[in-house]
């Protein structure tokens, strides 16, 4: 028997109340993990962006295109290993209007060389390059829409009028967490052929792979300088910075989520503190007896803190055990399948799991602060006289 052992047993004294409290803590831990995972999954695009890729787009607005000939200029820049381009198509499946997935018109020859984190079987890639109307789709969206190699798909575009027909040549899988597994990729040539002369030979953005990842910042500036005197200026950023810019638009939301996750922990602390205080109050006489037989106020404080600690640890563990099936398997799978463009990789990170449990335990000690302090202030004579 030890001090901590005694505290743990005290926690089990009112089993019903302890169970409720553990459940309350577990709910808070679950909500905390859920919210933190949203923020984390959002940021994964920045954290696991390819270090050697630069995205070059229209300086003023993403609505505007770049002339296709810019790609040649970029390719001549020393330090550029290879470059490819893509255009936003804004496609939708007319039969499933609500499903959102990215559709990009890409250079079939070079796209998968630059995006080597999208893995396609060599035979499928070769078939894609051969077929002008071929398309390669992410495994997540293929599964969701039940698309198979060989399927014929008709899409509508929010930007380009008309019906666009494709044949699925292959399916790509991701080898990097930040890769959206629900993109629909097809030949830019096919799109370009359908364009009227005024919008022919325009591309959305250029993606460059540089030989030296350490020089992405310099290279970005060098590329932009090339176009400084042309009609259309460019804005080049490393993939990480590009993603960060996109995420930057959501900072207010992310901040709000952070604040709320803290509020939830505070609510947890109040519940826990209340439980501990009630337990301590009911045991006043017992604590008086302990003081009488020689225990010091700090021993009593240890009992109270230990009891809270026990509940905190239990709640943390239960919360974590609930989080994995709910957040990881339920929510995570749903979001990866349905909102893959925003959440390509929605999993609980070890750091967040640890943080949640550490916070639950830490806050359990803080929560027990006031009850612990008040038991140290007990006058033994009063405590003994009080009938709980």
């Amino acid at each position, binding site marked *: *028997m*030890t*001090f901590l052992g*005694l505290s743990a*047993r*005290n926690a*089990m*004294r009112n089993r019903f109340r302890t169970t409720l409290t553990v459940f309350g803590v577990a709910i808070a831990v679950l909500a905390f993990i859920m919210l933190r995972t949203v923020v984390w999954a959002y940021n994964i695009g920045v954290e696991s962006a390819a270090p050697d890729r630069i995205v070059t787009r229209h300086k003023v607005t993403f609505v505007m295109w770049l002339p296709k000939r810019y790609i040649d200029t970029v390719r001549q820049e020393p330090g550029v290993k290879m470059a490819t381009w893509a255009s936003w198509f804004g496609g939708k499946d007319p039969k499933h209007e609500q499903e959102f997935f990215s559709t990009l018109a890409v250079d079939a020859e070079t796209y998968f060389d630059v995006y080597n984190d999208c893995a396609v079987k060599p035979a499928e890639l070769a078939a894609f390059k051969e077929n002008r109307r071929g398309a390669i789709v992410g495994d997540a969206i293929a599964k969701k829409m039940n698309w198979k190699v060989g399927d014929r798909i008709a899409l509508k575009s929010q930007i380009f009028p008309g019906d666009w027909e494709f044949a699925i040549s292959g399916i790509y899988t991701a080898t990097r967490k930040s890769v959206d597994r629900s993109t629909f990729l097809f030949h830019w040539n096919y799109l370009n052929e359908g364009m009227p002369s005024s919008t022919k030979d325009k591309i959305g953005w250029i993606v460059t792979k540089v030989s030296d990842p350490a020089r992405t910042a310099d290279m970005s500036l060098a590329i932009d300088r090339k176009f400084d005197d042309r009609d259309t200026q460019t804005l080049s950023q490393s993939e990480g910075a590009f993603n960060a810019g996109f995420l930057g638009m959501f900072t207010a939301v992310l901040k709000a989520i952070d604040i709320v996750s803290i509020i939830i922990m505070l609510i947890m602390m109040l519940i826990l503190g209340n439980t501990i205080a009630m337990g301590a109050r009911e045991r006043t*006489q*017992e604590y*008086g*007896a*302990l*003081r*009488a*037989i*020689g*225990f*010091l*106020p700090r*021993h009593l404080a240890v009992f109270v803190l230990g009891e809270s600690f026990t509940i905190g640890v239990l709640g943390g563990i239960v919360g974590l055990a609930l989080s994995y099936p709910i957040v990881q398997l339920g929510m995570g799978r749903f979001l990866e399948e349905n909102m893959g463009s925003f959440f390509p990789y929605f999993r609980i990170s070890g750091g967040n799991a640890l943080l949640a449990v550490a916070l639950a335990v830490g806050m359990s000690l803080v929560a027990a602060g006031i009850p612990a302090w008040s038991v140290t202030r007990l006058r*033994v*004579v009063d405590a*003994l006289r009080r009938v709980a």
Partner: protein
Amino acid sequence: MNQAYRADVRPMVRVRGLSKIYERGGEQLKVLSGLDLDLAEGTFEALMGPSGSGKSTLLNIIAGLDRPSAGSVEVKGEDISHLSEGALAAWRSRTLGFIFQSYNLMPVLTALENVELPLLLTSLGGAERRKRAETALRIVGLEQRMGHYPRQLSGGQEQRVAIARAIVNDPAIIVADEPTGDLDRQSADDILTLLEKLASEMNKTILMVTHDPVAAERAKVRHRLDKGALIT
């Protein structure tokens, strides 16, 4: 001095001029007024008196739970009325055993663990603590009930566990506040017999507060308290 003392027995507890005044709502309440009391080593003494006579206050002061307003309390020649809170607690754990009316056992601990509890404050190792706790339980005759939880024991058995807890650190003095108050006559008899035995065989000084004349009858010496003063 209203009582004669045997010169051959050194007093274990020596109370002189003890006063206790409480303040309640601006009013002064004199609970004890300048009383003297000696407790001899190895005797079982009872403290009697009606409710509000100050007997519990006197017990608490002797036990170092409360402080006198005036006067001194010497135990084994040491004046405890000036010790700090921490020193008093340490002193209690060394010199004092407590027995309460409502036993005050930890419901989450077994009989053995309850007895072991005060030893947590010592530097004894786990095995030694256990051995001593077992010995104490054997003395009170509960060696068969070591693994039982308080709720599995009768009231008399619970009080015997509490007595074992009081003697486990081998204190010089045992204070008991209405130890038989919650018990039936038979169990109360057993407890009183046990207390007698502790005094006579183990040389414990026992001070028992009670308002039960039958219980007090078993003590070797009886003190009577009324309105804050000793009358016998």
